[in-house]
C-alpha cells in the first residue's frame, strides 16, 4: 500500500466539508433526544401506576435487546408504510436518540437514587408539591452528578452515527467512501475519517473529564 499525501490533502476538505457537519448534527441532536427521552423514561419508571412501569420497562428491554441497525431500518423502511415518513437524517437521529435513551434512563435512575432519602423527607415535611419536589430538589441534585456519564454515552453515540450511512445519510464515513470510490483509492479518505473520529472523541472525552472535576466540587 502506498500512501499519497497529495491525494490525502485533496480529499481532506471533501470529507470534512461534506461529512463533518452531518456527523456533528447527528451526534448533538441524537444526544439531546437521548437526554430528554431518557429522563422521561426514568421518571415514568417511577410512576405510581404499575402498568406504566411495566410498559416502560418492557420498552427499554426491547430496545436494548435489538440491534440499533434493525431499529434504524424499521424506522426508515417500515414506518413509511403506515404514513410516517421523514428524511434520512431526522429518521436516524430519532432512531439513535431513542436507542440511547434506554441507556441514559439507567444513568438518570442511578442519579435519582443517589439523592439522600432525607431530601425527600424534608420536601414532604415542607409539603412541597410533588412536581416541585422533582424540579427544585431532586433533579437539580441528581442531574449534575450524572452529566459525565451522559457525556460518555454521547461519545458512544458519536461512534455509532456511521450506521446512518445505511439509510443514505452522508456523514464523515459516507463522504470518505464517496471520495474514495471516485478514484478507487480508499486508504487516504477512510484513514482521514478514522482520524476525524479520533479527534472528535478525544475532544469530547476532555470535555467530559473537565465536567467530572467540576461536578466533584459541586455543593
Amino acid at each position, binding site marked *: 500500500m502506498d500512501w499519497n499525501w497529495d491525494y490525502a490533502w485533496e480529499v481532506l476538505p471533501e470529507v470534512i466539508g461534506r461529512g463533518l457537519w452531518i456527523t456533528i448534527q447527528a451526534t448533538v441532536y441524537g444526544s439531546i433526544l437521548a437526554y430528554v427521552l431518557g429522563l422521561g423514561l426514568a421518571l415514568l419508571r417511577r410512576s405510581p401506576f404499575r402498568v406504566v412501569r411495566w410498559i416502560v420497562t418492557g420498552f427499554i428491554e426491547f430496545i436494548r435487546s435489538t440491534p440499533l441497525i434493525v431499529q434504524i431500518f424499521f424506522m426508515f423502511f417500515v414506518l413509511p408504510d403506515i404514513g410516517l415518513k421523514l428524511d434520512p437524517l431526522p429518521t436516524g437521529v430519532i432512531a439513535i436518540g431513542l436507542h440511547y435513551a434506554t441507556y441514559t434512563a439507567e444513568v438518570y435512575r442511578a442519579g435519582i437514587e443517589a439523592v*439522600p432519602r*432525607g*431530601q425527600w*423527607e*424534608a420536601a*414532604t*415535611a*415542607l*409539603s*412541597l*408539591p*410533588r412536581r*416541585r419536589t422533582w424540579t*427544585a*430538589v431532586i433533579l*437539580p*441534585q441528581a442531574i449534575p452528578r450524572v452529566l459525565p456519564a451522559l457525556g460518555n454515552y454521547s461519545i458512544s453515540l458519536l461512534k455509532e452515527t456511521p450506521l446512518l450511512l445505511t439509510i443514505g445519510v452522508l456523514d464523515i464515513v459516507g463522504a470518505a467512501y464517496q471520495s474514495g470510490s471516485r478514484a478507487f483509492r480508499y486508504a487516504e479518505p477512510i484513514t482521514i475519517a478514522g482520524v476525524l473520529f479520533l479527534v472528535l472523541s478525544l475532544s469530547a472525552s476532555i470535555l467530559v473529564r473537565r465536567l467530572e472535576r467540576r461536578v466533584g466540587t459541586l*455543593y
Partner: protein
Amino acid sequence: MSEPSTDHAGGRSDVMIQFDQVGKKFGDNVVLDDLDFVVRPGEFVTLIGPSGSGKTTILRLLMTLEQVTTGTIYVDGECLSHMRRGERLVPADDKYQRKVRKRIGMVFQQFNLFPNMKVLQNITEAPIRSLGLPRVEAEQRAHELLELVGLSEKVDAHPSQLSGGQQQRVAIARALAMRPDVLLLDEVTSALDPELVAGVLALLKDIAKTTDITFLCVTHEMNFARDVSDRVLMFDRGHILEDATPEKLFSEPDHERTKTFLQAVLGRG
C-alpha cells in the same frame, strides 16, 4: 375507635395531637403497640427512651413519612391517616395528607437542607410553593427568621458553607417559616459537634417559650428535656412506660426501667 375530643364550633380544640390505639409494624417487627396519648395545644412534650423504643417512629408517623399499621392519628381533630368519603373512612390520599401536614413542621437529625439552594431559598421555597405566599412576603419572613436564629449574614450562603450548628439553625428557620402549629424535633442535636449543641438548644428553648407552637421532641439531652418540657413520656418497646412532668420523672420515676435508663444516659453525659 373513639372520637377525638375536639370542639370544632368553639375555635381551637383542647387536643392538638391524639394517638388512638396506634400500632406500627415493620414486617414482623412491632415498633408501636396500641399506643394512646394526647398532646394539648402549646405543650412541649419530650419523648425519651432507649433507641428502638419507637420514639422517632411517632414523629415520622405524624409527618406522614410512615403510615400507621393500625389505629388513628388526629391532628387538631383532623384524622391524618384516613379521610371521610361520604359516610365512610378511607385511607388518606396524598392531597389530603398534604393539607393536614401543612400544619406540622419537622427538624431532622441530619438537617436535610437542600444543598442546591442558598439559605434564603431553603427558607422561602415551601412558603412560596406550598402556602402560596408572595415572594416578597416569604423573603421578608425569611429575613426575620434568620435574624431570630442569628444567621442574618448567611442569607446568600450555600448550606455546604455552613457549620453543622448553623445548618441546623437554618433548618429550624425553614420549619418555622411554614408557621406550623406543631413542630417535631427528631434528635436535632445528635449530629452536631458537642460545642455547637448548647447554642441550638438555647435557640429552641427560646422559641418554645415565646411561641404557642406545640412541640414533640425526641432527644437524649436530658437537661434540655428537664428544662423545657411540660411533660416527658418514657418509652420502652413501643409502649409508654411513664407519662409525667419532668420534675417528677427525672427525680422520682415510678418505674425501675426509667431509673436505669436515666442513670445510663445521665451517667454517660
